[in-house]
Structure formats: structure tokens, C-alpha cells
């Protein structure tokens, strides 16, 4: 292992290469373009492929084609570009193909700006495109996780034959931090049972998402649903910090969780019992641990870079058993530690809901 200083966006490419991904398809968009730049620089040198597509739609469908051959492949974009990819991602989910799609979220809606936000939460975690499907979604909060979760995303995408997503934000993409580069690994999956790879063994395989008979399509949807339930049972990941005796549990992911971490020790030193649950997977969502804590006398606060999206999943998990508050900033603004500490005080004093 080596330790290197790099941007979060570059760490994604490092993770992808170490995971055995050799096919990258991209399209320019700020603040995700560095991922394409790094891929253009390194993929061909390692015997892989980098193609800049003529549009986001072309890029995701190149991924569709390569994934269909059973080859590890990815694309990356930022919010408006991620919106354009939705149809392709629905096809990929429908055809049950593994791939990784990165969304370095920026401010919206519309052109918005190129500053960090988390307002694509609904789009990323609830399917995004048409039809019944979900994306395994990771929310890295540092450059190391940009790398490690990319590796994990490839593995889970292969394991479940489903697209996986990294939902980062402009900060985690642009920030430079030390990264322990993981060792390169062999791809542990054999795709001959389903891939169409131009070999005699795969010549009978069919990749498609069309089922004209209603019963066939229902069966296909139920099969996908069973897979999503299995993922929900097995793949929830989160981090918990000082929640056991907490009177107020903050729920935050990505860059916001870093700010929340820094406030908790300060609040504790002042005698305030605050804890943090940080979802690492946004889908499947860590509803179980939130539900567990909701059994006792506690309040929740969802802090997001949006006008309130993940808070709905917190409320679903709590199911009316405890107060759920929301605090959000957007447009590229992030809450300061002091701003959050003041918000905790307001809630603990029974001020705001």
C-alpha cells in the first residue's frame, strides 16, 4: 500500500483502477471533470479504455454496452449530467448489469451552480429514472472513502448484477487529502452465465429489459424486488458516534457529517448529549439503527445541503415515535460548526421543530 495526497475526484479513479475497472466513458461537467481527466490520463496507459462521449446519454449507454460484456466499467458526472443519464440507468437496472456511476453533486435545480449540494438525494436514492429500480448508493465523506467505496461499489454491483452509485458532493470531489491506495485486485466474478462476450459459452445469453407480456414483466419486477430486498437486508452501512446516551442524534452524510463530527465533542464538553448517525449507504438506508434509537426518549436532527430530502427517510424510520427536526443549507453554502451548535441548543431547549 502507498499513501498519496490527492483530490477526492482522483481517488475515485484510483479506486476504479485498483478494482479492475478498465473502461471509462465520460463527458465534461464541473465539478466532476477531474475524474474524466484522470481516467484519460491513466486508463489507456494501463491497457484500458477512455472514451469521451458526445453526450451524457452516449456515455451511460457506452457503459451499458461494456457492462453487457461482463467488463467492469464506469462513468461519472455531476447533477445535470446525472439527470441526462437516467434513461440509460433504468435500462441498465432493468437488464441487470453491473456498473458504477458517480454523481459529484452540485447546486440545482436547472443550471444552478458548480458549488456542492446534496439535493440529488431523491433522484439518486429513489431510482431516478422510470420503473421499479434502485441504485446501491454510497455517500463518501473523504478522499479515502472516494477510493474505498468505489472499490466496494464495483464488488457489490457485480455481486448483485445491479448498477451502484457514489453520491459525492463538490467538496469531497475537489478537496485534497491523503489516501492509502489499496492493492489491486482480481475481479472475483465469473460472468459467463449472463454476459454477451462474443464467446461460444456466452452465445446463448440475452441482455434485454423488454417484456411485452404483462405476466413476464411482473415476474421480472418481482425478481428485481427480491434482489433489492436482499441488498437491503445485507448491505446497509453506517457509522455511529456517541449515540447510546444521546438526547439529540444528528443524521448527516457526506461533507456535512465531517462538520457534525467536529461539533459533537465541543457540545459534549459543554455537557450536551449529542450523537451522530452517518449513513454510508444512502440506499439501502440505515433505517434499522435509527428505528432502534427512536425507541427511547431522543430527538433527531437531519442536517443536509438541501431544503430537506433525507429527512423524509429519517421520519419513515422514526415513524412518529420521536421528534425529527431538519436543518439545511443550499446553493453552495455549508453550515458552520457554530451555526450547528446554536441549532442543537434551540432544539434541546425545545425551541424549534
Amino acid at each position, binding site marked *: 500500500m502507498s499513501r498519496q495526497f490527492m483530490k477526492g475526484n482522483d481517488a475515485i479513479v484510483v479506486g476504479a483502477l485498483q478494482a479492475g475497472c478498465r473502461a471509462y466513458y465520460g463527458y465534461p461537467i464541473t465539478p466532476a471533470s477531474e475524474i474524466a*481527466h484522470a481516467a484519460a490520463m491513466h486508463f489507456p496507459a494501463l491497457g484500458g479504455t477512455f472514451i469521451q462521449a458526445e453526450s451524457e446519454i452516449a456515455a451511460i449507454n457506452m457503459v451499458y454496452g461494456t457492462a453487457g460484456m461482463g467488463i467492469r466499467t464506469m462513468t461519472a458526472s455531476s447533477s445535470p449530467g446525472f439527470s441526462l443519464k437516467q434513461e440509460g440507468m433504468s435500462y441498465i437496472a432493468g437488464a441487470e448489469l453491473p456498473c458504477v456511476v458517480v454523481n459529484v453533486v452540485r447546486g440545482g435545480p436547472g443550471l444552478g451552480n458548480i458549488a456542492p449540494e446534496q439535493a440529488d438525494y431523491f433522484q439518486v436514492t429513489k431510482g431516478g429514472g422510470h420503473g421499479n429500480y434502485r441504485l446501491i448508493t454510497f455517500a463518501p465523506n473523504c478522499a479515502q472513502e472516494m477510493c474505498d467505496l468505489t472499490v466496494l461499489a464495483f464488488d457489490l454491483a457485480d455481486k448483485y448484477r445491479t448498477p451502484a452509485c457514489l453520491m459525492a458532493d463538490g467538496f469531497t470531489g475537489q478537496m485534497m487529502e491523503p489516501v492509502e491506495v489499496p492493492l489491486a485486485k482480481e475481479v472475483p466474478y465469473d460472468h459467463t452465465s449472463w454476459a454477451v462476450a462474443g464467446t461460444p459459452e456466452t452465445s446463448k445469453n440475452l441482455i434485454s429489459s423488454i417484456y411485452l407480456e404483462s405476466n413476464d414483466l411482473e415476474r421480472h419486477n418481482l425478481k428485481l424486488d427480491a434482489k433489492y430486498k436482499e441488498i437491503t437486508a445485507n448491505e446497509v452501512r453506517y457509522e455511529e458516534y456517541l449515540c447510546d446516551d444521546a438526547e439529540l442524534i444528528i443524521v448527516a452524510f457526506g461533507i456535512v457529517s465531517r462538520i457534525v463530527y467536529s461539533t459533537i465533542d465541543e457540545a459534549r464538553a459543554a455537557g450536551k448529549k449529542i450523537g451522530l448517525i452517518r449513513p454510508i449507504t444512502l440506499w439501502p438506508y440505515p433505517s434499522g439503527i435509527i428505528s432502534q434509537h427512536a425507541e427511547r426518549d431522543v430527538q433527531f436532527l437531519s442536517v443536509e445541503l438541501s431544503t430537506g430530502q433525507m429527512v423524509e427517510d429519517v421520519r419513515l424510520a422514526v415513524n412518529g415515535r420521536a421528534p425529527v427536526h431538519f436543518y439545511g443549507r443550499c446553493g453552495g453554502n455549508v453550515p458552520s460548526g457554530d451555526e450547528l451548535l446554536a441549532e442543537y441548543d434551540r432544539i434541546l431547549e425545545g425551541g424549534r421543530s
Partner: protein
Amino acid sequence: MAMNLQTLSKNEDLLAGGHRACAGCTGSNILRQIMLTAGPDTVVGGATGCMEVVTTIFPYTAWKTPFIHSAFENCAATISGVETAYRALKASGELPVPREKMNFIAFGGDGGTYDIGLQSLSGAMERGHNMLYVCYDNEAYMNTGIQRSGATPFGAHTSTSPAGTVKQGKEQHRKDLTKIMVAHNIPYVAQTTPFHWRDLQMKVQKALEVDGPAFLNILMPCTVGWGFDPAIGMELCKQAVEANFWPLFEVVDGEYKLTYKPKEDRPLMEPWLKQQVRFKHLFKPGNEGMLVEIQRWVDSEFNKIMKLCGEA
């Protein structure tokens, strides 16, 4: 009616100063020249790109005309909608302020025109909207950090076609968008540069006068993306034409016509390439063949244009 520089300069400058274009940007100059000719009764659409970003950062706008921004891929569709609404209101007599003539101009960079916006541009041209589409072609995605586009020339270094030990810049020649637009059988297609102001002004005027869609492809040297002294942008326009890299011609109802006849002993591509950092690696030992290929391609493309213009 052709205008001389004196009368043209008396027209109102419809792009206000204080916008955020880079020093030495030839793009803002293109916009100003077009608007001097088009005049105030013009609706402008801008696809996401350099010129949109530098002129319309909310809540400011440098445009003294109505301006509508669209996503990267659909400016031609957006202006189609504006133009259609105008015609519908005119037909029903509901225009709040009736005008003799309105111009509808869509601006897009080469990324938003050659690549992601080609579908919506093609649709607008085929439907026959009374609009002018202007591509300001700086030969890469400059706004997002200099990535290659369908307009990037062979051999150019960009962030996504980097020159290094494995590859030597872009591996494909540029797409001929102007000819693709001619194939739409629209009344007016032309290409020009901001250095050739009289040529540009004449072409804008013709494009706006025809009944139906028109397309202008305008070369826009980019100081950041091409890597040159901000003082020489216009000089590079001039040299691109002299070297036959960017011939000036127009196509009226399918008939090609050269609007600038280059000299017999035209300069080679090398001096033009040498002034730009994006081609620096081509002058390293081992890349001589790429220079030969660039010259071969430029000569071959130019000869085709000359034939189409009845000059060969």
C-alpha cells in the same frame, strides 16, 4: 445593405462591458459584432457554455436584448419555442408590441453544437424555424476545463486527449459541421471569423434576411484552451484563414461560394500550430508524421471546398 466600419460603429453595442470573459477572448467580440448588425429587435438564446456563463451570472446580464438560457443540449429547441410562440402571437394579432421584424438567434459553443446539441439543432433546422444558429467554435469544451470535442483538431492536447508517453493528443480529425448543416437544405450556411469583420457582418445580415433557418460557424481562438498570448487571438483568426484551415465561404440555397480567395502561395500549417501550446508536443522528435498528416488533411479538405465553390 453593406455597412462600413463607420456606420456599424454608430449602432448600439448590445453586449454591455463588465462581463466576465477572459482577457483576449475573441468570443465576446463575436457576440458584439453579431449584435451590432442584428440590432435591438432580437431575442438571444444561449446554450450553457463560456459565452452564457460570462454574460449572464445571476442576477446580472450583459445582454441589452431579451436573453434566454437553456441547458447544454437544447438551445436550438429553446429558440424554436420562442420563435414559434412569436409567430403564433403574431398570427392571432396578440403581440403586445408589434414589430416589423424580429430576429431569433441561438448561440452555442462547439461542445453544445457539434456534440451534445446536434440533435436539437438538426431538428430546428429541419422544421424550418426562422432563426439563426451561431456556433462559436473554440475547438474544445473550454468552460469545463478544456476537454476535446468533435471540433477539436487532430493532434491537439486537451484534458481528455492528453499528450503524454502513450498518446499524442487527439487521434481524430475534426467533424465538418458546416457541411452537415448544408445537408439540411436550409437557405443560408456560412463560416467566418471575428477578424474578418466585413465578411462576418455581411453573413449575419444575409442569415437574418433569409426566410427560414440559417447557420453560422465562427472560429473563436481561445487564449486559455489553445494557449497563446491574449494579444494575438485576431491574428490567429487571420492566419487560420490564410493557411486554408478555416476557409471563408457561404452556401446560399445549396450553392457554395468562396467569400475570401486565399493567395496561391498560402502559408503552411506549421507557423499557425507553433503559436499554440496545445500543439507544442507535435514539434517533438518522433511526431513529424503528425505534422505531415495535419497539412495533408487541411489541403485535402480545402480542395474539396474549392471544388464545391467552383474554384478548382
